[in-house]
């Protein structure tokens, strides 16, 4: 009986499927289309190449009654899912390829690229800067921008003069941007809104202002412009936004020469090896990689060379702090920095400090101590980034050098209290926190920072003096370091060096076993011996209470 029923069922199903074959197939395909994304998200059956470019990851939110009611849970969930759904990578690449093939454009929403003539790629703000309308993103009009740039130039001068007696040379390096060096490939100005208004360009304004005020500065942009017709290599790549990898080597050499001149010292030389032609890589095709296309663009070839450092025992190795934008990566990735500088931390946009293979936040360091420990501080920004006024570095630095940490904390606390006691202000910050996927505390802190940086002289009046005489106790504390503390610090440095060397670690281990010590004791004794030896040989000197006045590159932390 069961067999008959099954047979009838099977026959009727077979008849139904044969009669509706197309419908069945299409229904199945439609179902697959709908559920494919969820399936891929759950199983990750296909492993797609990650999308190029930096994306701020949106964390998966946890559901609470409050965040559901105020909508922040939904907002964050959508953001999170937008970054984490099945087939995202091929979908993005497919759509980008469609935009590229059909319209020669990149996604509007991202706003990361503009297409120039002859297949050249630019960042939109680089194009805007060429047409001198970039300032509209930072100021209401050109007069306001001029005022902001003038104030910043004065702050740079203040900081330069303030640091000089302590042996720290501050200088500005104006980094070339693609628009000025390669304007012939720029697209026409699409944004005609401000055609009739006065315009301003930070690069030209700053150059004039620095010269007028006597700010130490090196204009690599002008130098690149002069080189443009004579250099037998591209200064900027077609599909990258930074200077060409090869050209940046020459820029680095010029920078070293400038520091030698500024500090009246002798530094080691960079040796640029023989060049070879290769297809674009590293930063030379960084803009193309952002296109996230399926098919790569026809690529140009560029020069690449190895850089080494000439041995020179008479040369000094200063500490350099670079506060700047991403152009520095091309240099720091190619040049063996540790062979030229005793330390060369990179304060990326005055936010994250990269040193050796580590990184930390600028908020985590003793700013005054860091500034005083450096022999050179370089403000290294390309033209389009100069509107950001050194990312508030000068303000932070002046405050840190002139005010005690307790005084700074007190101002911050007062401002925080004012903000937190204002319910409407807090409501706005809550919205801001939700939209930026930040915590409320973080957003309040940023608001405090914004208030201070918006008008530093209001909260720290000493900054209103042309050259502030007030000093933070950190400045004196830095130079009044006693010999015991100094030796302890040096011992700690040597310990860290040993820990980074496997062979030395094995030696210490053997010594510990041989003399019946613990490993830590043996390590400390060895490091202390090294420091004492250096002191005896005069390689190391306990700093006096006087200000440092030459480039020693010693007694400095790595960051």
């Amino acid at each position: 009986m069961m067999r008959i029923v099954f047979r009838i069922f099977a026959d009727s199903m077979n008849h139904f499927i044969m009669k509706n074959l197309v419908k069945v197939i299409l229904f199945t395909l439609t179902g697959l289309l709908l559920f494919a994304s969820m399936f891929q998200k759950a199983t990750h059956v296909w492993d797609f190449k990650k999308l190029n470019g930096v994306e701020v990851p949106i964390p998966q939110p946890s559901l609470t009654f409050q965040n559901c009611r105020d909508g922040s849970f939904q907002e964050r969930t959508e953001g999170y899912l937008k970054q984490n759904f099945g087939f995202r990578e091929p979908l993005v690449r497919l759509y980008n390829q469609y935009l590229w093939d059909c319209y020669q454009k990149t996604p509007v929403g991202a706003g990361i690229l503009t297409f120039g003539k002859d297949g050249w790629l630019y960042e939109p703000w680089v194009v805007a800067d060429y047409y001198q309308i970039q300032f509209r993103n930072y100021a209401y009009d050109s007069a306001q921008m001029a005022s902001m740039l003038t104030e910043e130039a004065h702050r740079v001068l203040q900081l330069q003069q303030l640091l000089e007696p302590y042996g720290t040379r501050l200088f500005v390096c104006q980094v070339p941007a693609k628009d000025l060096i390669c304007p012939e490939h720029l697209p026409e100005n699409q944004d005609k809104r401000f055609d009739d208004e006065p315009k301003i360009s930070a690069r030209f304004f700053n150059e004039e202002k620095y010269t007028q005020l006597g700010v130490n500065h090196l204009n690599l942009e002008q130098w690149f412009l002069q080189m443009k017709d004579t250099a037998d290599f591209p200064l900027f790549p077609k599909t990258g936004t930074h200077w060409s990898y090869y050209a940046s080597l020459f820029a680095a050499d010029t920078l070293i020469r400038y520091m030698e001149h500024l500090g009246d010292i002798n530094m080691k030389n960079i040796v640029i090896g023989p060049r070879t032609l290769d297809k674009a890589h590293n930063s030379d095709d960084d803009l193309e990689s952002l296109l996230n296309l399926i098919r790569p663009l026809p690529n140009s070839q560029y020069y690449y060379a190895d850089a080494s450092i000439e041995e020179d025992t008479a040369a000094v190795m200063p500490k350099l702090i670079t506060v700047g934008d991403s152009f520095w990566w091309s240099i720091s990735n190619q040049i063996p920095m540790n062979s030229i500088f005793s330390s060369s931390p990179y304060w990326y946009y005055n936010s994250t400090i990269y040193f050796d293979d580590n990184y930390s936040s600028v908020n985590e360091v003793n700013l005054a101590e860091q500034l005083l420990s450096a022999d050179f501080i370089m403000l290294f920004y390309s033209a389009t980034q100069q509107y950001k006024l050194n990312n508030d570095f000068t303000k932070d630095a002046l405050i840190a050098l002139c005010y005690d940490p307790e005084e700074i904390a007190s101002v911050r606390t007062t401002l925080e209290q004012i903000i937190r006691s204002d319910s409407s202000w807090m409501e706005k910050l809550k919205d801001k926190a939700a939209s930026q996927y930040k915590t409320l505390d973080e957003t309040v802190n940023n608001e405090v920072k914004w208030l201070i940086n918006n008008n530093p002289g209001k909260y720290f009046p000493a900054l209103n003096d042309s050259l502030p005489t007030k000093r933070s106790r950190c400045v004196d504390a830095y130079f009044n370091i006693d010999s015991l503390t100094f030796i302890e610090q040096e011992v700690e440095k040597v310990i860290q060096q040993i820990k980074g060397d496997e062979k030395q670690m094995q030696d210490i281990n053997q010594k510990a076993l041989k003399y019946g010590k613990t490993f830590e004791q043996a390590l400390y004794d060895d490091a202390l011996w090294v420091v004492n030896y250096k002191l005896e040989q005069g390689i190391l000197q306990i700093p006096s209470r006087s200000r440092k006045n030459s480039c020693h590159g010693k007694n400095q932390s790595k960051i």
Partner: protein
Amino acid sequence: MVFSSNIFLFFFLPIFLIAYFITPQKFRNYTLLLFSIVFYAYGAPDFVFLLVGECVINYFIVRAMGRCTDGVHTVSTKKKLLCGLSVVMALGLLLYFKYANFFMENLNTILGWAHHEPIGWMKVALPIGISFFTFQSITYTIDVYRGTTPPSQKLTDYVLYIMMFPQLIAGPIVNYNSVAAQLVSRTSTMEDRVVGFYRFVIGLAKKVLIANTMAAYADQVFGIAYGDLATGTAWIGILAYTFQIYFDFSGYSDMAIGLGKMMGFRFPENFNDPYTSRSVTEFWKRWHMTLGNFIMNYLYIPLGGNRKGKGRMYFNLWLCFLLSGLWHGASWNFVLWGAFHGLFICADKLFLKNALKKIGMLPSVVITFFLVAMGWVLFRVDTAADAGAFYQALFAFKGGLTVAGDAQFWCIFVLAIAFSFLTLVPFGQKLQDRIFADSYSKPLSWTMFAITLVLFILSAGSLCVSDFNPFIYFRF
């Protein structure tokens, strides 16, 4: 949650469809209701209780009304009272949530003119979709009152009618009597589900690929001080907006109709090539048709329609459009937009329609399109003064282009024109009929699947790469 979002496309919809189709037939309404409540609560958690509460109360009011027995030629007083109560409750909520801010702002402006202190008030938040569910609630009450349909036998069926997620946020406005039977019993074949999905994807593509592209340009143009606009830019800007609003709203309706079809519902069409209209009157028979029907059946006719003389008819028509404008948004520019259309509807009755008929099809379509586009200026700007400035920009004959569109904009712009006026030629009409058919021949089935696949991938890709995705009609 909007249909054109990743969370809806890749999570909510697949999960819902699995849950819906594995549920036994007789329990499917509960699944749909549950997901509809989640859908609404996701976007407006605070208001979901208000909406459900209103539905429950109205259900019992209307059920009590349905039990009232009328005389031969008279309607019982109790029935009238219950009907009034139901309508007042629905309209009261709409007036409070949608128009309280508008009222207070205007009152304070008047007080300001009279040198009085403004009255302080807490801004009222707008529940999503209130304009649509209020009207649906009213159609239910009035249909039962008129005896067109009996009251719903199950509370959950009624709540589902109001809250069904495909049409909850932005319509179409579905009359209760047109879906009452489907709420109780409906079937969806395999073909319905596939064809419904095709319709959904077509709507998605209209919204994401066409409307959003037009919106990006229109927003740029309307973001510039109108005094600075070159005439060409102002014209392209308003045309971009004209196409944006059509493809945005009709796309959403297509998505709602497609989703309904996948579940076996037959929602009414909401658009019928409105830009091919030969008069403003015809435009309103083709644009947002379910709203037009609502206004006709539940406002114009109760006001007396054309039964009380010509003067009253013109007044009724004009008032209906004025209120229709206000329904679109609590702002004077929407009132002006309604009044503008009301004016041309009256003019049509008086002479314009006949005059347009005489000049031939193409000129009448062009003139009507021009009038409609002029109306959209009022819809898009914030104030009457802004509208004046924009009209000035349109006719100032200032040369050049303030905002040059890119290749994508121009390609999509041309496509938008082609799709909007396609049915003016017989071939276009035939093509459209075949695309929006209920069933397809085998070759057309494959073609439609291929088109749907491409549109779905492009739309999904566009949603992935772009954050620009606002719906114009979302907060009505």
